[in-house]
């Protein structure tokens, strides 16, 4: 999933058209929200984002004048651990967010979940969505009778 998303983001016109002379972007890997019908531990959700950030960093983003920073919460936690409240965080210009949705069909014999993960790149000064893509995966569980 993250491979495809990284590929899609890098191929988007907004990113592909940038070069080293472009106005600098500071992208905060901002938010992962689970709006599916299943509990997904946050550490697992952040794994997706961490991997996506890693893949993007492996590409030539510096040559396009793009830098990634932590989310505000992660940055605050890091500062607290390092006991350095004076540490100033670079102000992000963009936010990369992911939201997990699901469509559940449920009856007594089976449950089928279609998960959709939607990624957005948002320009923070204008709230404009510069890029959006999604990834779908389906899962079916056959039930035994409970009663």
């Amino acid at each position: 999933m993250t491979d495809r998303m990284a590929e899609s983001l890098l191929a988007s016109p907004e990113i592909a058209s940038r070069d080293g002379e472009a106005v600098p972007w500071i992208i905060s890997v901002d938010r992962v929200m689970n709006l599916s019908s299943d509990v997904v531990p946050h550490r697992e959700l952040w794994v997706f984002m961490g991997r996506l950030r890693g893949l993007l960093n492996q590409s030539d983003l510096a040559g396009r004048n793009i830098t990634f920073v932590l989310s505000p919460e992660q940055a605050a936690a890091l500062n607290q651990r390092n006991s350095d409240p004076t540490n100033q965080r670079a102000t992000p210009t963009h936010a990369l967010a992911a939201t997990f949705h699901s469509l559940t069909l449920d009856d007594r014999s089976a449950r089928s979940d279609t998960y959709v993960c939607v990624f957005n790149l948002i320009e923070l000064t204008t709230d404009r969505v510069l890029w959006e893509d999604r990834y779908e995966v389906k899962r079916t569980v056959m039930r035994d009778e409970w009663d």
Partner: protein
Amino acid sequence: MMNTILFILSIPSTLWLRVRNKMRELFAIMMLACCFVGCAPKPMPVTPARLYYQHRYPDARDALRERAADRNSKDVILDNLMLGMAALADGDLYEADAALMRAYEYLAGGSINPDDRKVAATLLTEDIKVWTGDPFEQAMSFYYVATLSMLRGEWDNARAAIRNSLFTLNDIGEESSDQPPTMGEVVRDLAAKDTDPAQAARPVESDFALGYLMAGLTETQLGRDHEAKLHYDKVRALNADLAPLADALAAKQYNTILLVDYGRGPIKTAYGPDGALVKYVPNGRKHRPPVITVHVNGNERTVPVNAPAVDLWTLSQYPKWWSLKSIRQAKSAVGNVLLLGGTVATGVGVAADSDETALAGLGAMGAGLLAKGMAGADTRQLITLPHCVYIVPLMLEPGRHDVRLSFSDDRLATAIWHDLVGGSAKQPVVYYLRQHAEAPGMPRWFDQPQYYNIHTERPTGLRPYLLGGRDLAVPALAVAAEYRRDPALDHLTLDELLALCRVEGIVLKPGPQGRTGQAGRASENYRHVTDGGRVLWSPRPGTHGHQRLTRRRHAPYQAVSSHLRDVATRLDPQSTASSRAEPLE
């Protein structure tokens, strides 16, 4: 009676011989059945549930941990839920997460009973079947998973969990004007109509107000006000007494949410022929749940809580909140029918001088007796469930607060929860408070802290518990700096504190400590150093763990390593003695 005697006397002698042989076989079968039913009284064991209700959470968790890890156990869900609930009340979110998520996987995934167990359930007894609980127990299980997520501030996961609790119910039986039907009435009605319960069941929307309130709260916190409104509207329609609470939650008039589990849930009891039927005691619909009163720092707060979000004593009385129990009830009913039918067939065969008919009747009688003998109800239940649950929204000012909860007509349930800190409108703090009712009621805690950690106020001159002091804070830079204000400890750095822990074998958070199997589940990996374990950590306020650590007295720490003894010896003996913890009374 006379007719029966005349009937027996009329049976021809040749048939009697065959009957006698058949009766011997039947007798053997009945003896076998008796073994399954079990007649001998058993001594009452110290169960995890008893430990739980005696506030001995670490003991209850120890008793459950090994059982909960057995994925082949028929009680795997039950044990994990009980372990998760005990850990939640005790403040160990690591173990609560591990246990509740194991149970959640089974309950939400739906694949529970492998085929072999299902066959066994059909042929032998339902007790072999993996426990999944009645629907109200399942709904409450999702409430605990949601609670865990809320305690962590994961509102999206709380939303996902609590939505699972709002499943469609199967309603059976006619409700009279005042009382829900008993299981006996439901079964009798089904037998009279010769209907299978699964066919008779009507799908109905859930009336689980607690689930709607929690769902509304999670949607509110995610900024999805439209979705939240749908849930709050449902609550208002279900129970007018809950409308003020729904209004307060919708208006975000809180920075702190108390989820209060009060008392002991209903007891599942077998009754009727062969104990094949079950009821939840206390039974009857008209329960009067207590009124909750909230004091913050000694001052009463007006809270919009006129009623509990759920009253399980009442909820458990309704057939739509029972599982269909089709196998057991069918077995019991078939047993009775076969027994009756077999007696008639034997009589008919004898009267018609037909050996085949009579023997078929005797066979049916045998099968009926066998089925009857094995049809005892499955009374396993999630015994740690509360009587009722209250959702209390509060607006707490900055700083630590003592929150006293009291309940009408139950003096022993009163307790003061110390060191609660409010959150913000955007990120409220949630506390899960387990209140025990009546005898033995709540534990007795000192009003003033006996020990300190990062959640309590921190007077000057604190010394670490390991060195004879009263501070149970987890080593950190700021903590070490506080210690160094004491001239006797002016050399104590964070590195040295951590080194002392290391040589003593002390770890800083509960869990398997990287070990697998039984070694990972060892009691010492989860128990605090004040309680025979090797974990030095700080359970969050609003839990029995925090109260026990800070508001009770503990025995002084017994050094394991010569290194720690040497360090302790170098300290001023006078000041050490004065700050040394008093022994447990």
